[in-house]
C-alpha cells in the first residue's frame, strides 16, 4: 500500500476515466438528442482503433494525421448510420436498441472477417515512449499522452457545446425538441452533428487506447459497458454528468483492480450501476 502504488493507480484511474468520458460523451449526446441507446457505439470505438492501426501501423502515416483521419472517417460512418438506420426510430427506445444490436453483430463480424481474429498491435507514437520517474513512482509517457490528448478533446467538446451555434442547437434540442424546431433549428441536422461528434470522440478514444491495448474486433464490448455505467451514473443525456461519472468509474476500476482483483473491480462497477439505478434512477445530474 505504498504511496507509489497509490499514485500509479491514481494516474491509471485518470487515464481510463478520460477515455471512458470520450466514449460516454458520444453516447450521452446521442441519447440526449435522439433518445436512442446506441449499443453499437463500442463498435465505432473499435473501428476507430482499426482505422488508426491501418493508417499508422500499416501505412506509416504520422500519428496525429492518422488520428484525425480516423476521427473523420468514423464520424462520417456514424452520420450515415444515423441517417439510414436510427432516424426512423428517433425517440423510440426499444426498436432503436434492437437496431443497434443488429449493428453490433454486423460491425463486429464484418471486422472479424476482414482482419482476422488475431490481436493487432499499434506502436506507441514517437516521443511518447519510455517512462518518467517521479521519486520512486514510475509513470509511462504514453499514459500521460492519453490523458493529455483526451483532456484537449474534452475541453474542445465543452467549448463546442457551450459556445458554438451547432452546440447551442444541440442543447436546445435536448431540452425541448418542439420549441427548438419552432425557433428554426433543424432537428435532423442537429442529430447528424451529435452523431458525428459523438462518433469522432469514440474513434479518438479507440485511437488513444490502440497503442496501450491490442486492437481486435471485440475490443469495443468492455468500454461500452463501462460507458453505459458512466452515463447512467451521471444521468442519461447529461454532458456534465458524463465527466464526473467517467472519473468515478475510472477510479473504482483502477483502485479496485489493483488492491482487490480485476473481476471484483468489474463487479464493483456493475454494483455502482445497480445501486444508482435503484436509489437515483435518473442519475446524479439527470433531468429526465
Amino acid at each position: 500500500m505504498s504511496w507509489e502504488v497509490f499514485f500509479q493507480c491514481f494516474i491509471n484511474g485518470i487515464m481510463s476515466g478520460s477515455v471512458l468520458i470520450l466514449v460516454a460523451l458520444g453516447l450521452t449526446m446521442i441519447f440526449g438528442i435522439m433518445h436512442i441507446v446506441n449499443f453499437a457505439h463500442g463498435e465505432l470505438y473499435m473501428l476507430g482503433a482499426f482505422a488508426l492501426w491501418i493508417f499508422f501501423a500499416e501505412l506509416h502515416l504520422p500519428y496525429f494525421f492518422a488520428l484525425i483521419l480516423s476521427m473523420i472517417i468514423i464520424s462520417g460512418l456514424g452520420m450515415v448510420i444515423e441517417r439510414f438506420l436510427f432516424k426512423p426510430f428517433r425517440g423510440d427506445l426499444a426498436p432503436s436498441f434492437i437496431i443497434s444490436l443488429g449493428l453490433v453483430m454486423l460491425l463486429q463480424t464484418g471486422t472479424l472477417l476482414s482482419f482476422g481474429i488475431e490481436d493487432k498491435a499499434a506502436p506507441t507514437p514517437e516521443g511518447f515512449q519510455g517512462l518518467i520517474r517521479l521519486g520512486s513512482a514510475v509513470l509511462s509517457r504514453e499514459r500521460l499522452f492519453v490523458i493529455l490528448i483526451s483532456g484537449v478533446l474534452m475541453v474542445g467538446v465543452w467549448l463546442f457545446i457551450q459556445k458554438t451555434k451547432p452546440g447551442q442547437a444541440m442543447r436546445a434540442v435536448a431540452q425541448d425538441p418542439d420549441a427548438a424546431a419552432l425557433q428554426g433549428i433543424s432537428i435532423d441536422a442537429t442529430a447528424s452533428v451529435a452523431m458525428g461528434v459523438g462518433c469522432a470522440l469514440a474513434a479518438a478514444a479507440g485511437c488513444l487506447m490502440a497503442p496501450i491495448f491490442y486492437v481486435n474486433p471485440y475490443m469495443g464490448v468492455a468500454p461500452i459497458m463501462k460507458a453505459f455505467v458512466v452515463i447512467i451514473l451521471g444521468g442519461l443525456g447529461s454532458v456534465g454528468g458524463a465527466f464526473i461519472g467517467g472519473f468515478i468509474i475510472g477510479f473504482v476500476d483502477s483502485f479496485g483492480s489493483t488492491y482487490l482483483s480485476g473481476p471484483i473491480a468489474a463487479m464493483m462497477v456493475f454494483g455502482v450501476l445497480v445501486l444508482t439505478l435503484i436509489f437515483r434512477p435518473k442519475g446524479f445530474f439527470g433531468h429526465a
Partner: protein
Amino acid sequence: MRKDYVRYIVGTAVVVFLFLFPQIVENPYYLRVWINTFYLTVLTVSLRMIMMTGQVSIAHYAFMGIGAYTSALLVTKAHWNFWLTLPLAGSFSAVVAIGLGYVTLRIKGAYFAIATVALGEVIRMVWVEWKGLFGGMNGIMGIPPPDPIGGWAFGSMPSYYYFGLILGLFALVAFYRLDKSRYGMTFRSIALADNLAEAVGVSIMNYKVLAFTIACFFAGLTGAFYSSLQHYISPMDFTGMESIMLIVFLVVGGRTGILGPILGVAVLSWLPVLLEQLPRYRPTILPIIYGAFLLVVMLFIPEGVLGVPGRVRGALARIRGYYAPSET
C-alpha cells in the same frame, strides 16, 4: 370458425410430424438442430413474456445458467436423480428472479435493459470467481445424461429429441394459456400504458415480477435440459450475446403472437443448415446474416416474419383494387 379448423389441423400435423421425425430421419445432426430449435423456443417464448410487460431483459441466459448450474451441481456432486433436479432448477431460477425482479424492475426501458446486462455479467462473475463450487472458467464437466424412467433410457440423440420436444410443447401450452388469460391481458396493459393500468388498480410491480419470474422458471428448466444435453457447462455458455440472440429470434419472428417466436427460432436455426449447402460458406459469417436480418426486419417489416402474409394480402388487395373497375 373455418380459420380455427385450419389452424388446428396445421398445428396437429406439425406436432405429429415432429413426433415422427426421428423415426424417418436418422441423421443425428438434423436431430440436434431440432433439439436446439426446441430449447431456444422455450427461451424465446419465455423472454416474450417479459417483453410483454414492456421490459427487455438481457439476463435471460444468465437465468438459464442458474438452472443449469443448479441441476448440474446436484447431479454431479450430490448424485441426485436428474428428474428431481429439473423442477428444482426452474424453481431456484424463479426464486432468484423474484428477489432480483423486485429490485431491478423498478426501472424501465433502456435503463432496465442496461441493468440486466450488468446483472447477467455479475451472475456470470459469481460462477467465474467462486471456483470451489462452480469450477471457475472451467465450468462443470462430466454431467451424466438424465436417469432412466421405467424402461426409457436417456443419452441417445432421439431420447434428447423427445425430451426437448415435450419440454417445448409444455412451455408452449403454458405460455399460450397465459397469453390468453387475464394475466396476459394485464401484462400487455402494462406495456401499453403503465400509469393507466395502475390507475385502474393493477399492481404493476407485482405483475412485472410475476411475468419475470414465470419466464425465468422456464429459463431454469431449459438450463437443466441444456446441462444434461451438453454434459458440460461453463460461464461462457451464458453470456449476454446469447440473450441478444433470443431478441433476434423474437424480433425476426414477430412479437404479437406466440407463433412469432416459434417461427423466428425455427427459421434462424435451420438457416445455417441451408447455408451450409453453399460452397464457400463459413459459420463465422452467421452473425452478419443475423444482424442484417435484424436491421431489415426492423426497417421494413417491424411486425416480423409473422406479418409477411398480411402484408402480401394487403398488397394484392391494393393491386386488385387498382385494376378492378370500381363497382359503385
